[in-house]
């Protein structure tokens, strides 16, 4: 049974009381209980089951401008005391840092809006197995799928509270249901290729139909079969949606408060400057209902609201927590936990238009390795894709993409096919120039 709010609050109150008694001037406590149950199926047979029940506590103590933190899985009150003593002892020994303190009280979340992040329904392991069997029946129904690498269904429920010595006490329950399948494709004489598909939802009833999951993954794996090699050249590139979302990943590393304050971002001097073409808008909205990536407040208890990161191509906001916002002389925008639901506003072109823009281009269906380096601004990764040469097309693999991140930003053209599936969402994207394909 998931621990009730009252029990978590009591633990938090105890920790704050004890810390203050032991000379902390301020204190923040997070208490969370997560119960998660997963079943894995492989080739239509159960492979494993896993049940997890963890109660953990995270405490940060302040003595004026000194700060230290401690994380532990709960054992008993006696151990909690030992942990707090240890934390206070460390705090005392640390040097002052003038930017250390709890968040500005005005910014703390008080009335938490219900974002519909908890579904009371539970799904038994038997039902999970039935679902997964349907997934694998569909997948293995494809004659080129030779076996499955595993399919899993997870139900995870958590209850979490955050409290601090400035009177903050907030929390909420979360649920997440997710399903996943990873398939191996093989044609006569070909090598093996694999690919996967997954879905993750707050509400059980919203999860993808098992047949669709199996069929989607099968399509992805099969289209990789019998890849050719490709030659080294500069050529227009289209990133599929599940790859183009990584553009927001590298942007988020490059606009983190820490990388701005510490001078380690290649975009450090670009706030209020053009970094994308002027038809590009990027939004981060933590308050979307029923999204597993939503959060009414961040991990410091600061209220989060919808913001434009990029408006008309101009970088308008960066990702700020309390510490780095003080260092940069700004206010926290409730993003100590990073971004939430981030998306590009869709472009005007249809997916087909992107393909009609050039006679030869490469659709990137998968990448390996880091999608760019946010410090140096360099971009280089391994890739898999489909080569479109006039009316012909064929799968290719084992090539690289190289260039600069700013080349991708500068020449991006978006399709109108945005969908909300991940924490970061981008329509299919055409990169007209700047990327070099490295092959044989």
């Amino acid at each position, binding site marked *: 049974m998931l621990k009730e709010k009252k029990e978590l609050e009591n633990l938090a109150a105890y920790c704050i009381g004890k810390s203050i008694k032991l000379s902390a001037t301020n204190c923040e406590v997070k208490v969370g209980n997560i119960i998660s149950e997963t079943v894995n199926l492989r080739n239509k047979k159960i492979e494993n*089951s896993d049940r997890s029940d963890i109660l953990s506590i995270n405490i940060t103590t302040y003595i004026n401008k000194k700060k230290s933190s401690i*994380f532990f899985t709960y054992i008993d009150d006696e151990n909690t005391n030992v942990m707090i003593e240890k934390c206070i002892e460390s705090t005392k020994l640390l040097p002052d840092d003038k930017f250390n303190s709890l968040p500005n009280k005005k910014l703390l979340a008080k009335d938490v809006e219900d974002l519909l992040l908890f579904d009371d329904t539970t799904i038994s392991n038997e039902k999970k197995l039935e679902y997964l069997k349907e997934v694998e029946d569909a997948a293995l129904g494809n004659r080129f799928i030779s076996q499955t690498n595993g399919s899993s269904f997870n139900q995870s429920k958590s209850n979490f509270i955050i409290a601090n010595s400035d009177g903050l006490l907030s929390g909420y329950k979360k649920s997440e249901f997710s399903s996943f399948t990873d398939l191996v494709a093989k044609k006569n004489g070909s090598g093996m290729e694999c690919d996967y598909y997954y879905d993750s939802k707050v509400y059980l009833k919203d999860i993808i139909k098992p047949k669709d999951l199996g069929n989607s993954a099968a399509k992805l794996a099969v289209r990789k079969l019998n890849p050719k090699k490709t030659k080294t050249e500069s050529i227009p590139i289209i990133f599929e949606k599940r790859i183009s979302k990584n553009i927001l990943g590298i942007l988020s590393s490059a606009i983190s408060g820490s990388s701005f304050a510490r001078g380690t971002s290649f975009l450090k001097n670009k706030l209020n400057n053009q970094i994308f073409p002027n038809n590009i808008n990027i939004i981060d909205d933590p308050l979307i209902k029923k999204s597993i990536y939503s959060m009414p407040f961040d991990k410091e208890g600061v209220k989060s609201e919808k913001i434009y990161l990029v408006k008309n191509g101009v970088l308008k906001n960066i990702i700020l927590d309390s510490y780095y916002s003080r260092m940069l002389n700004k206010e926290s925008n409730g993003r100590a936990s990073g971004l939430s639901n981030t998306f590009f506003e869709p472009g005007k072109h249809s997916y087909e238009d992107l393909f009609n823009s050039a006679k030869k281009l490469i659709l990137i269906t998968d990448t390996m390795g880091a999608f760019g380096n946010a410090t140096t601004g360099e971009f280089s990764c391994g890739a898999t894709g489909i080569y479109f040469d006039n009316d012909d097309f064929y799968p290719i693999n084992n090539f690289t993409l190289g260039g600069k991140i700013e080349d991708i930003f500068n020449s991006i053209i978006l399709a109108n096919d945005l969908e909300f599936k991940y924490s970061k969402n981008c329509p299919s994207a055409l990169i007209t120039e700047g990327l070099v394909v490295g*092959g044989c």
Partner: protein
Amino acid sequence: MDNFFKKTDLTRVEAEKIVDDTLLNKDDGELYLQNSINENITLDDGKIKNTNFTKIYGMGFRGVCEDVTAYCHTNSINKKSLIDASKSINSTLRSFKSYKHNNSIRRTNEKLYSDHNPIEAKSLKEKIKILNTVDQYIRSKSNLVKQVTASISTEKKSIEIIKTGGLTLSDNQPLTSFRISLLMKKGSKNTQGSYATGGRMAFDSYVNENNWKQVCDEAFRQAEMNLDAKKAPAGEMDVVLNNGWSGVLLHEALGHTLEGDFLYKKTSVFHDQIGNKIGNENITVVDEGNISGRRGSLNMDDEGEKTQRNVLIENGKLVKFMHDRLSAKLTKNTPTGNGRRENYMFAPMPRMTNTFMMNGKNTREEMIKSVKKGIYVDALGGGSVDIVSGQFNFAVNNAWLIENGKLTVPVEGATLIGSGPEVIKKIEMIGNDLKLDNGFGTCGKSGQLVPVGLGIPSCKVLMTVGGSKT
């Protein structure tokens, strides 16, 4: 040894009885108890940012029938939790009526590291002082150094494994690591360097003045070298890898595909190649979990099996996969001491320990001299692999362009890619300078991170380089 039954309503005798009642009618399984403490102190931006103290405490109970695993874990070690876990395991495995219970294990008394607690080797104050000295030392090397992050992380992990019949095994696993990363800036150009050291020996053997200066000097050298680096070339070419950390090539390109779970699942690109020649005869690859004091070494693995030297590829012939108890059973092999888990929240699986390639005959100079156009990789970053297709990639931090047998200019921004079965055939020359890495490797698989070691002599291999210069 930690006494996990001191402060709970569960006695050791009761725990052993529940283990027997649950597992005697299963093929395999164990109760895994863990108490880990970890201290991390980070200096960044010229000041101590934070100290983090983490305690991971709990148990994981596993039952195995044929190829099915039921696993249950919780932070509360008490009677109710263990009984609940037992019920959950029985529920998953209830359809198995016949079983072959096996609790035999290969034990060892050999100690590859002493039972010490590196967290207590120095006081927090002394560690802060070291980090401040490190920061001053690096910044004094050049005023182009704009950012320094240095950290000291120490850990003591105590584990106990209880199998049926009251069989218990335990180990205390110390681990120290010291890391540096820095940023240099010249004009609008940012460059990075990073290096580290660590392992399971005494704290002072890693964090002493001589050692930390070497780590700083190497990180600085990497960042400084890239200040004048040109764009890396793109395309297939000869690559000369330096010795040591370049072993990440082996780890990604070959190591993962030789893990036993991918053998019984038949998903490894090498699953049907045992006994076949897969590379040239100079190539011998070893995974060795029982090297004294190293980061990837363990007295016993996370199933209680003793670790050992496993020759995986011998003179180009694939001879062995790495196994945990499950993959060994399913493929009719013996366990190889490679059953590892990050912590009690995970069931074990076959993982690497210290993986390296044996020496060949060539010198690095000979290799460079033999290349008309290619790159010499001076510092590799991390990598990853798709074990099904065998495709791997890794990032190059520092490299030189080789033109007509000579190193000409530093180049940056490259990825190396290839496929394991192809690349092993394209290793053309192997050096006589095998070196193990400096002790900072961490390997991720299915969401679990474990410390590993790597090593390789210098090698020359034909690969695809992903730069941006055509």
